[in-house]
C-alpha cells in the first residue's frame, strides 16, 4: 500500500494546530470522495469555526456559510442539483448551538445530504470558550471552574438527539484518537456518502476529535482525553441505520 | 358617487360571506373592464366577530383602495348597520338584509333598499347564500354592473372547485334582484 495525498486534498500546509483532529477528518473525507469518484460532482459547505478555511484544503467546489447555517445552504444546493453530492462539515458550536434549528429541520426533512460533525468539546477559533458539547467539569475560558450541570446544563448529545427523527437515515459516532478508531471513522464516512448516492436521506457522522491548544494540554494528553473522558460522555457506535 | 367612482363597504358577521360577496363584485367589475380595487380579506381571518370588505369601482384610476366614506354600505346584520350608517356619504345608499336588521337607522340624507336576504336564502335551501341575495338587491337598485357580469363572476369563482354551488348562487342573485324593496 502506497501512502499518497488524496486528489481531493490540495498540496498545501494547513493552519491547524499540532495534534488537532481536523486534518485527519479532512483526509478521511477526501479519501472517501476519491474512492467513490465524486470529486467533480461534490459541493462542500464550510462552517464558521476552525474549519471555516477548509476550502483552502479541499480541492472541490466549496461554499462558506454563515455560522450554523450549512444544513439550510446544503438543503437548497441538493434540492437544486439532486444529481450532485453535497456534504456539510460542522464543528460543535456551529451544529449544536447556533445552528441547532437548521440541523434538526434538515435532518427531519430527510434531506439527502452527508453531514460530518467534528466534536472537540470546545470553541477553538475564538479561543477556548465553552461549547454545547463541553464536558461536565471541563474548564474553558467561559467556565473557568469547570462546566456546571446546574448552570450550563449537561453536554448536548447530537446523535442521541437526532436518533428520534424519522427523516434521519444514518447516525454514527466515531473518534480519531486511535488508529483503530480512524479506520472505523473512515468506514462510517464512506457509508454516509454512499447513503447519499443511494438516496437514503440524511446521514451524519459525529467525530470525537482533539483540541490540545484550547484544552491546554499536549497532543498526547489530548488523545488520552478523547479516549478516557469524551468516549465516556459520548459513547461511540451506530445510533441509527435504516 | 363622484367622478364615476363608487366606494362600497360590505359588512356582517364573520361567516356571512362578506369576503365572497366582495370577490364576486370585484370580479364582475373586471369582467366589465372597469377599474376596481378590493380590500377584501387581510390574510388572517377568523370566524365570528365582524367582517368587512371594501370595493371601489371606477371608470377612472383609483388612488386609494380604502373606503372611509362609503357611497354604498351593504349591511348583513344590525351591528354592522349601527357601525357603518354614520359613515355613509350624504346622498349615499344602505342595502340592508332586513331579516337580520330590525332598526334600519335614522339618517334622512341617505337612501335605503332592503331585502330579506337570509330569509330568501333559507327558502332556497342554503342560509349561506344570503350574501349573494343582497348583491342582487344592490345591483337592481344601482345598476352599477350588469346582472350577467355578476352571474359570470359566480361562474368563474365556483367552476373549478365547487361547480355544484353555481346554480344556487345564481338563483340567490336573481331572487335578490327581484326581491329588492325601497324602504
Amino acid at each position, binding site marked *: 500500500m502506497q501512502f499518497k495525498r488524496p486528489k481531493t486534498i490540495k498540496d498545501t500546509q494547513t493552519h491547524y494546530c499540532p495534534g488537532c483532529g481536523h486534518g485527519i477528518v479532512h483526509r478521511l473525507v477526501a479519501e472517501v470522495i476519491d474512492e467513490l469518484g465524486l470529486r467533480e460532482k461534490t459541493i462542500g459547505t464550510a462552517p464558521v469555526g476552525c474549519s471555516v478555511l477548509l476550502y483552502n484544503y479541499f480541492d472541490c467546489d466549496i461554499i462558506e*456559510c454563515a455560522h450554523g447555517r450549512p444544513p439550510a445552504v446544503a438543503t*437548497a444546493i441538493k*434540492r437544486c442539483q439532486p444529481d450532485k453530492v453535497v456534504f456539510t462539515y460542522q464543528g460543535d458550536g456551529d451544529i449544536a448551538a447556533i445552528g441547532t434549528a*437548521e440541523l434538526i429541520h434538515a435532518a427531519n426533512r430527510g434531506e439527502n445530504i452527508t453531514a460530518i460533525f467534528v466534536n472537540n468539546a470546545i470553541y477553538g477559533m475564538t479561543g477556548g470558550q465553552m461549547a454545547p458539547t463541553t464536558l461536565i467539569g471541563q474548564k474553558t475560558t467561559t467556565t473557568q471552574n469547570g462546566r456546571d450541570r446546574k448552570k450550563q446544563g449537561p453536554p448536548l448529545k447530537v446523535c442521541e438527539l437526532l436518533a428520534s427523527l424519522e427523516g434521519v437515515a444514518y447516525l454514527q459516532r466515531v473518534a480519531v484518537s486511535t488508529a483503530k478508531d480512524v479506520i472505523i471513522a473512515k468506514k462510517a464516512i464512506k457509508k454516509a456518502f454512499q447513503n447519499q448516492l443511494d438516496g437514503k436521506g440524511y446521514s451524519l457522522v459525529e467525530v470525537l476529535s482533539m483540541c490540545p491548544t484550547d484544552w491546554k494540554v499536549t497532543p498526547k494528553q489530548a488523545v488520552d482525553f478523547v479516549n478516557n473522558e469524551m468516549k465516556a460522555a459520548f459513547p461511540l457506535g451506530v445510533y441509527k441505520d435504516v | 358617487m363622484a367622478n364615476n367612482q363608487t366606494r362600497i363597504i360590505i359588512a356582517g358577521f364573520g361567516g356571512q360571506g362578506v369576503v365572497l360577496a366582495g370577490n364576486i363584485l370585484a370580479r364582475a367589475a*373586471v369582467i366589465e373592464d372597469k377599474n376596481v380595487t378590493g380590500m377584501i*380579506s387581510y*390574510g388572517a381571518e377568523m370566524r365570528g366577530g365582524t367582517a368587512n370588505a371594501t370595493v371601489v369601482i371606477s371608470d377612472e384610476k383609483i*388612488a386609494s*383602495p380604502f373606503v372611509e366614506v362609503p357611497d354604498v354600505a351593504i349591511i348583513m346584520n344590525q351591528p354592522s348597520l349601527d357601525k357603518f350608517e354614520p359613515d355613509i356619504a350624504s346622498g349615499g345608499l344602505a342595502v340592508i338584509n332586513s331579516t337580520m336588521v330590525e332598526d334600519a337607522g335614522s339618517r334622512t340624507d341617505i337612501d335605503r333598499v332592503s331585502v330579506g336576504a337570509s330569509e330568501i336564502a333559507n327558502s332556497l335551501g342554503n342560509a349561506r347564500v344570503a350574501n349573494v341575495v343582497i348583491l342582487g338587491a344592490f345591483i337592481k337598485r344601482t345598476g352599477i354592473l350588469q346582472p350577467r357580469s355578476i352571474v359570470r363572476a359566480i361562474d368563474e369563482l365556483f367552476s373549478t372547485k365547487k361547480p355544484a354551488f353555481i346554480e344556487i348562487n345564481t338563483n340567490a342573485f336573481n331572487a335578490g334582484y327581484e326581491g329588492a324593496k325601497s324602504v
Partner: protein
Amino acid sequence: MSKPSKKILLKGNEVLSQAAINAGCGFFAGYPITPQNEVPEYLSKALPEAGGIFIQAESEIAAINMLFGASASGVRCMTSSSSPGVSLKQEGISYIAAAELPCVIVNMQRGGPGLGNIRAAQGDYFQSVKGGGHGDYRLIVLAPSTLQEIYELTMNAFDYADHYRNPVLILGDGILGQMAEPVELTKYRPIVDLPEKDFVLDGCKGRERRVIKTLLLQPAEALIEFNEYLKKKYAGIESELKLCQKYRCDDADLVVAAYGITARIAEGAVDMARDKGLKVGLIRPITLWPFPDEDFRAVAEQAKKLLVVEMSNGQMIEDVKLSIECSRPVEFYGTGGGWYPTSEKIMEKIESVYE
C-alpha cells in the same frame, strides 16, 4: 359585451408570486407571517407545477440561507416575509451581498417595532436602504405602488439581481400585499443584459474548483480591496439605476414626495389640490436605493416646498433632505404603527402647508 378583459383579479401577494414564476424563479423558501402569507401559499402549489422548488423553512434565517445555496446553484430564487421576519433575515442578506449572489427578497411591511401589528406600514425604510445587516453593503430596493407595477418590478428584480450580481429587495407593505386589483400578466422579457453565471457551484468537472466565501483574512488588505471593489460596483449601479416617476410637477409650487402605496394615495390628493387650483405635484421614487436624487434636485428648482408623506414617523424624508441639500423647506405628514393615509387627509395637509 365588449371584448373580454385581458386582466385578472388577484391580490398583490399573488401577483408577486406569479411574476416570480413567469420570470423563471426556480426556488422559493419562506416562513409564514401576516400579511404576506399568500406568497408561500400560492407558490407552494404553483411553483412545483412550474418545475420549481418550494420549501417552507423552519425560520426566516433558514429561508434566507437556503437562498444562499440556491443562488450558488445558479437558480433564480426568492424569499418573502414581513417586517419582523425580514429583521431575522438580515444576517443572511449581508452574506449574500458579500458573496454577490443574485436573489430577490420581498418585504410586505407591517407595523413595528417589535411584533407591532399586522397592518400596513413603511417603518422599514432605513433597514432596507441603509444596510439592515452588518457591513458596508447595499441592496437594490424597488418600491412598487400598484399591483401592475408589482408584477413588472418583480420580474425586473430578477434581472437586476442577475445583471448586478446583487440581492434585490422589493419593498411593499400590507396594503399592496392584501389589496386586489385587475392585472395584466404580460410576457416576461429580460430588461437588462444577463451575464453568464460563472460563479455557480455545480461540481468542478472540466474546470478549476470554485469557492464562494465571504471571510477575507489574508492578506490584511484583501477586505479593504474587496470593499473598494464593492464601492465601485455600487457607484456603477447608482449611475445606471435610478427610477422615479413625476406627476404634475412641471409648474408645481408644492411637490409631495412618497413611495409605494402612499404615493398612489397621495396622487389622489394631488388631483384634489389641482381641482382647487393649487399647483401641486408628486414625485415618487421607484428605486429607494439608488435614491433618485437628481430628480429631487430638479423638482426642487421649481418647487417652493416639498411635503414628504410616509407610513412611518419619517424615514425617507432624510434622503429627500439630503438629495436637495436642504435647499427648500421639507414638510412631513405620516404616522408609524400601522396607519394608512387617505387622499382627503393628505389634501388637508397640503392646504395647511401650501403657500
